[in-house]
């Protein structure tokens, strides 16, 4: 990436333009992926130079300037088509979702703060007006600083520091957190491993949650309430990919801590797993969890994948939920034919062996759900304008239920399951440049119409 910068600055030719576009898709990916991609970019650069030489040769041939251009165009398309594969290990370009931006915009590279060290950041500011406009809120939802460093071309680290809701102290509602901090090593060109605090490779959003990447002012409900984005654990993970578009992820990590469940708070109903995640904060680690998943990007513009996560949640605590286990699985597809961006995801969670624990929560408003799930589909279309601007109207329909079923509640003291929430979001993302986005949307929520809302947002990422 960094090495590519100087070259891209002087790009003029359509071929270079196409590669430039590819290069620009990359900065929007998570910083972690950046480091992983650097090596590949170097390779691409070499390839590019080779192509340029070839091109010069063709030019020198001077038989037909026209023919040479057409030829170059064809080569460029091939390079772009290769992008999903290039990204396969890092999942960058495809997950980033923004189709290649136009050539007219200025090239961009991460600020380099050392020969092998880069800085990144993202932030989002939201303004939200629910049905009852007295509850309107404006919030610096997130501000994040990241740093990545390559020790060698095979070993690197990445870390992100995040502040949520602007102000953090004992009396404020903000949070300051280390969102990722891990080292990664490439064993071969196809296999790498990481260790530390890292994002679980699950769904479409968890690893790629920057505001410039997703549609709408707020992250979707399914990947917040069912999959607890931004979900990270401490552990080790491995990634393997081949040249035909397959990526396989697996790891062994810390997991959830059910002893934290609060039957008297709403948190567990808002996001069952979100209320018992540990985020690497003195995480009780008696029970380890494991995950395994795959992604397939064998057809340009298509990504299809699934992940399952499983682990004990009792964490050695002496309580009625000591044998509980959490299972989460999800499947997702994303297809970006031309300016279209189509996505769908289903996620299902279960917490087993909780009958005794729920008996202790008898009468309390929020027992532990045995199952919870949700799905969404989303369609967006991207208009591209001069100066790197893009306009992306989108519509998303979601259904999610954070308490699909209960077990262990005493007879006569059932707590109603659900609700089966339905959210329709209609909105617009406007990218001033690929790194800066303005958003606007309206969301209809059922059955709790009072939560329907209009929202505005600003986000950036580099």
């Amino acid at each position, binding site marked *: 990436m960094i090495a590519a910068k100087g070259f891209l600055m002087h790009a003029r030719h359509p071929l270079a333009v196409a590669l430039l576009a590819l290069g620009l898709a990359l900065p929007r990916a998570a910083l972690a992926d950046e480091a992983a991609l650097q090596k590949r970019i170097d390779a691409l650069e070499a390839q590019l130079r080779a192509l340029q030489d070839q091109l010069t040769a063709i030019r020198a041939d001077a038989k037909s300037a026209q023919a040479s251009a057409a030829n170059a165009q064809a080569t460029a398309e091939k390079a772009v088509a290769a992008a999903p594969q290039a990204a396969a290990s890092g999942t960058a370009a495809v997950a980033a979702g923004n189709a290649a931006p136009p050539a007219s915009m200025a090239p961009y590279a991460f600020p380099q703060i050392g020969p092998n060290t880069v800085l990144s950041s993202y932030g989002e500011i939201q303004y939200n007006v629910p049905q009852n406009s007295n509850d309107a809120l404006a919030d610096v939802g997130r501000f994040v600083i990241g740093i990545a460093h390559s020790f060698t071309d095979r070993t690197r680290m990445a870390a992100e520091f995040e502040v949520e809701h602007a102000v953090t102290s004992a*009396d404020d509602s903000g949070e300051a957190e280390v969102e990722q901090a891990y080292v990664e090593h490439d064993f071969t060109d196809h296999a790498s491993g990481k260790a530390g605090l890292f994002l679980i490779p699950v769904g479409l959003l968890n690893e790629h949650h920057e505001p410039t990447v997703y549609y709408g002012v707020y992250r979707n409900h399914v990947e917040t309430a069912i999959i607890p984005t931004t979900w990270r654990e401490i552990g080790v993970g491995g990634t393997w990919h081949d040249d035909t578009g397959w990526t396989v992820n697996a790891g062994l990590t810390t997991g959830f801590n059910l*002893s*934290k469940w*609060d*039957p*008297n708070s709403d948190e567990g109903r808002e996001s069952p797993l979100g209320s018992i995640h540990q985020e690497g904060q003195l995480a009780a680690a008696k029970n380890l969890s494991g995950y395994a998943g795959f992604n397939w990007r064998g057809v340009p513009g298509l990504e299809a994948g699934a992940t399952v996560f499983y682990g004990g949640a009792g964490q050695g*605590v*002496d*309580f*009625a*939920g*000591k044998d509980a286990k959490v299972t989460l699985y999800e499947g997702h597809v994303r297809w970006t034919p031309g300016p279209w961006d189509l996505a769908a995801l289903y996620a299902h969670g279960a917490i087993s062996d909780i009958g*005794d*624990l729920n*008996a*202790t*929560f*008898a*009468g*309390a*408003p929020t027992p532990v759900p045995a199952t919870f799930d949700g799905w969404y589909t989303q369609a967006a279309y991207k208009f591209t304008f001069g100066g790197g601007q893009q306009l992306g109207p989108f519509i998303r329909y979601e259904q999610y239920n954070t308490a699909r079923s209960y077990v262990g509640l*005493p*007879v*006569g*003291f059932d707590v109603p399951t659900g609700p089966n929430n339905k959210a329709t979001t209609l909105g617009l993302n406007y990218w001033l440049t690929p790194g800066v986005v303005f958003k606007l949307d309206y969301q209809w929520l059922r059955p709790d119409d009072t939560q329907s809302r209009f929202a505005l947002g600003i986000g950036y990422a580099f």
Partner: protein
Amino acid sequence: MWPFVAALTLSITLAACGGGGGGAGSAGDPGLSDRAALGKKIFFDPSLSASGRMACSTCHDPAFAHAQNNALPVQSGGAGLDVPGFRAVPSLNYLEKNPSFFFDSEGTPTGGFNRDGRAQTLADQAQRPFLAAHEMANGTPDVVVQKLAAAAYADDFRRVFGSAIFADIDTAFLRARQALEAYEREDPAFHPYDSKYDAFLAGRATLTAQEIRGLALYQDPTKGNCSGCHPSARGSDGTPNSPPLFTDFTYDNLGLPRNMAIPANADPAYLDMGLCGPERTDLAGRRDLCGAFKVPTLRNVATRKVFFHNGAFSSLKDALTFYVQRDTNPEKWYPMGSSGALEKFNDLPPDLAGNVNTTEVPYNRKEGEPPALTDAEIDDVVAFLQTLTDGYTP
């Protein structure tokens, strides 16, 4: 080896029983610091009172979760054990987590010792029983220290606090109270956490159908809502996985009926109004707090023979029925005045009746409405409260 272990186990068991052992013996208690072992002796020593017949343990009987063992609304002390007190005796169990008094960020009074929170620490609290005319009635600290210097464990006291300790009255009195505090904090007899409910929370016992129903009614915010003030869930004091204390250490005004069995109440001008006095003096200006008393733990509540600060009720069933029928059937609880009008909330001056909590479940009903709990449901809650008694063996 085994005989040694057995002997050790036995002695720990005996210590944990904490029994009415009267403070004999010279060696320290296993598991207790020297200070706490000394505190234990002081706790059980009747020679430290004017009557020679009253110790802390007289009113705080270990067999009754360190509360009174009789059904009197107030205990009598003094030289002749005939000077009546003013409040029912609270349990001393589970005070190890009781914070000092403070107003939280929302202005809610919280913590402190005694039913009005006027003592900041356990050691601070121990002044009154030693001195007050209606309790151990020593009048002044030097009398207490003289008695300590004459006690069987005076040498222990010197060993722990220095050979010249009795020469300095104030320090010696303070050390005696610190020793009591250490005992109350350290001895597991004050916080065994071994009720049936604790075993149930740990997944090692099951409750009967009635007890579970009672628990559900207790925790249901629309039925008993008891856990709103007497929390029953693990970790509810903010410490992860800590067992529930059944109090949040806040204060509330229940509007209890005046208990004419308390001698002081013969004087119509005498009003015990908790936080705003008369025992507590620093909040006298806070009229809005008049009538508020500390939420007591409900652990071991089934071992009590009188309930609430003024001992107005002598069965759990009555105490709970009052909770849910106070407003639906006030005629059951309050007397008719001379004018023929019901004197609701008659333990408060009429202009402060508005201080009574009438908005929170279960006492948010109006006359004519059904009570928050039926008679059978009250029985269920009582059955649940009985699972909170320590010393459960499956």
